[in-house]
Every structure is written in structure tokens, then in C-alpha cells.
């Protein structure tokens, strides 16, 4: 990092195509205030986000990863989000054992109409990342 520059948090947000991505769109259309420190990656389903992909994000310098999917019971593919939840909880355990704070990886649910919820989840995660700073052991 160059001297005199502020280090900005980098949050990778994986959004499922059917609910959360539309929710992000909704937040945009409604002109909600969201801190500009996140990048959205659209996936077909939250269960499409492989643990390997999350680790790759951390390796490439992400401060945090947020996985967003449809609410339980509302998955476009019936049960993808349940699998995403189990994978994320297990991956969290692995990350904790490797010295990452448990807040660095979060999974949450945002439906297509919940623009406000998208904004608040992303904002609160970014605030948490600012508090934690960059990962010490990436």
C-alpha cells in the first residue's frame, strides 16, 4: 500500500440470481445509501458458491465474504440455500481454526423485494470489516 492512502475494506458479496441479486437491484432503484466498499458477484444459487471460491476471495485480498440467498423455503431450486448454510457454517469453523475472525464470512437471506434489508446487511457487514481491519493471516 502506498503511503498516505487510506486502506479501504473489500467485501465480496455473492448474490443468488433469483432473490438477492434482485434485492440488490431493488436497493439501487430505491436509491438507498450503501457504503461503496463491496463487489457483487452474481451466481445462479447461493449453493453455487463453493468453499474454494470463498477461500480464493480471501487469498486475493478480500476482508470479508458475504453470501446472500433466498429465504429458507423460498429457494428457486427448492433446497440450494440449505446446502449453502451447512457449507458456510462448516467453512466458518475451518476459517476460525486458521485464525480468521468468525465475522469475516457471513451468510444471510435477502428476497427480491427486500432492498432495504440488502442495504442494511451490507452496511453492517462493511462496518464490521472496518472495525476488524484487513485479515492478518491472509
Amino acid at each position: 500500500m502506498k503511503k498516505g492512502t487510506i486502506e479501504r475494506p473489500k467485501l465480496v458479496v455473492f448474490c443468488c440470481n433469483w432473490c438477492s441479486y434482485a434485492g440488490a437491484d431493488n436497493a439501487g432503484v430505491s436509491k438507498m445509501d450503501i457504503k461503496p466498499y463491496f463487489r457483487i458477484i452474481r451466481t445462479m444459487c447461493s449453493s453455487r458458491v463453493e468453499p474454494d471460491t470463498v477461500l480464493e476471495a480471501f487469498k486475493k485480498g478480500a476482508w470479508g465474504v458475504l453470501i446472500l440467498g433466498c429465504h429458507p423455503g423460498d429457494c428457486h431450486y427448492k433446497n440450494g440455500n440449505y446446502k449453502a448454510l451447512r457449507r458456510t457454517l462448516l467453512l466458518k469453523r475451518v476459517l476460525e481454526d486458521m485464525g480468521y475472525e468468525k465475522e469475516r464470512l457471513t451468510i444471510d437471506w435477502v428476497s427480491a423485494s427486500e432492498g432495504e434489508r440488502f442495504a442494511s446487511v451490507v452496511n453492517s457487514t462493511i462496518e464490521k470489516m472496518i472495525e476488524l481491519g484487513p485479515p492478518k493471516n491472509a
Partner: protein
Amino acid sequence: MSKPKVAFYWCASCGGCEEAVVDLNEDLLQVAEKVDIVFWPVALDFKRSDVEKLSDRSIAVSFINGAIRTREQEEMVRLLRKKSAYVAAFGSCAHIGGIPGLGNQFAKEKLLKLIYEDLETNDDRTVPKPLSKADGNELEIPEICEYVRTLDQTIDVDYYIPGCAPPADIILKGLTAFLKGELPPKGTVFASDKSLCDTCPLRDKKPDKFSIKELKRPHEVIHDPEKCFLSEGIICLGPATRSGCGERCINANMPCRGCFGPSPRVYDQGAKILSAIASLLGIDEEEIASEEDVSRLIDSIPDPVGLFYMYSLPASNLGDKRRNDEQKDNS
């Protein structure tokens, strides 16, 4: 024509790979007749200076086992790389980091503190240092690197002979390829291109659909040799592991622990098996299971990093610490 020169070297390893070479038995004698072993610290009395005297690329092939943990190992493999036409990573540790690679869970200082300061000992608490003085003499021992690296994270590697330790047929396959000059493309792993499940003797016993309701460790149950380990709730790394080992562990009633490394097209072996296991966990009741139910299942795995990444931590996205190492020592 003179015989091709071959070198063997060991880094952070247990010696099992050297044992595997000796285990070639009579075949070793035939191989020894065809080659000139110029360096093999465990068996022959050649020194580093003998290697230095050789001209560059004059060793036909160097088989290097063990992960890279100390500066001495780093220096030696660089020297061997310079003197060899080909370098083959021999065994799990050189290939993907192996058991020594689990050290990447902790910083070097933490490990040294635990071993030399915190643990009980009958001995005096002398912490070894790279430079020390005893009886007026200066003593030098190799410095420990910040993190463990695989061989190909340290030098350019041409071929891989996987396994902990590599089975005799795989070693012979590799040696014969070099002796006959029939070399596959660079980067080839001398093993099968299938996953272990594909060649597993229990393959037909695996139910089409099953859910893991409870995770068990191998010592907690009497395993039915006719059943797939995963369907019994015992974690087996077969789905993400390369085949070619001869299913040694499965035939001995033990689940796969992943020593052959990721199967082709898999990069992070641990993440892949984590993903597979998590999908199977309580799949029956996933719609009614609360987050606590899921957490309880997950917490029944005592050491997920040590289990999923038993052999592959330094080679994975999770445990590749090269960036830290480079920042710290600028080498």
C-alpha cells in the same frame, strides 16, 4: 554411453519415502544397475560439495521428498534444481505439503514457543537459535522458514510422484519413464486421472442417496467392510482424492485421508471435500433443521482443518502462506 545420474534428497519428511525406495526390493537392484546414484544422504556417503562439483543439468533426474521448512532445505533444492535436467516431487510432502504442512495453521513463533517453552520437559529449556555459542565455538543451525511450502512453491518441478509413501508400482512407473526417455508432459502426476471413489472396491456398495445423520470417527464404530465409509457417517476423503494408491487404506478398513492429493480439475482438496460432506450432513431433515441442529452436527468434527487438509494444507487456497513468507524475509 555413461549411465544416467540420479539423485535422491529429503527435506521435511519422516523418512518413509526413502523406505518406499528401499521397498522396491529386487526391482531396486535392477534400477541401480541402470543408473548412477550420485547423491542420496540417507544411504550413500556423498556430500553437498560433490553435488556442487557436478556441471549444471548433468543429473538426469532428482527425486526430492519432504516439504520445505528450513533455509537449508530451500538452498539444497535450489542447488539440485540447477544441477538436474528434471526434478520430480516424491511423496505427499513434496507434492502438496503433507503432514508437516499442517504447521501452516500457526505462525512460526507460536509453534516454537509451544514446543520449547510451554510444553513439559525433563530437559533444560534451551531454545535453538540459528547462531549460538558453546564452549567458545560458534554453532550454526539452519533457520526455520516462516511457513511450510511445497516443492513446487520453492523451485520449478517437472513431475510428481504422489502418495504417503508412494506405492512401489507408482515409483517404478516414474523411474521407467525416465529410464526409457518416454516422458509425459511437464506437470504430470504419475497416478490415475480418476478420483478414489471411482476405483474404490466399495463403490457398488454406496447407496445412491444417503444422508449423514451423525458423524463418527473410525475408532468409535466397528466398520462393516461391505459398506461405503461415508454412508456409515465416517468421513472419507475419497470423493476429492486422486486414485492410484491401490486403495491401500480402504482395503485395510480405514477411510481415505487424501495422501494422493486433489483429483484432476480439483484445486483445493480440503474445500472440495468440505463442500461434499456439508451437503450430505442431515440432508433428510434439512428443511426442518435449525441453525443449532446444523451447528451441533458440524461441531462433532473435532478438527476440521486437520481432517480435510491432512495432507494438502500448504498447496491449498487456505494454507498457502507464501505471501506472508515473502513479506517477512524478502527472499
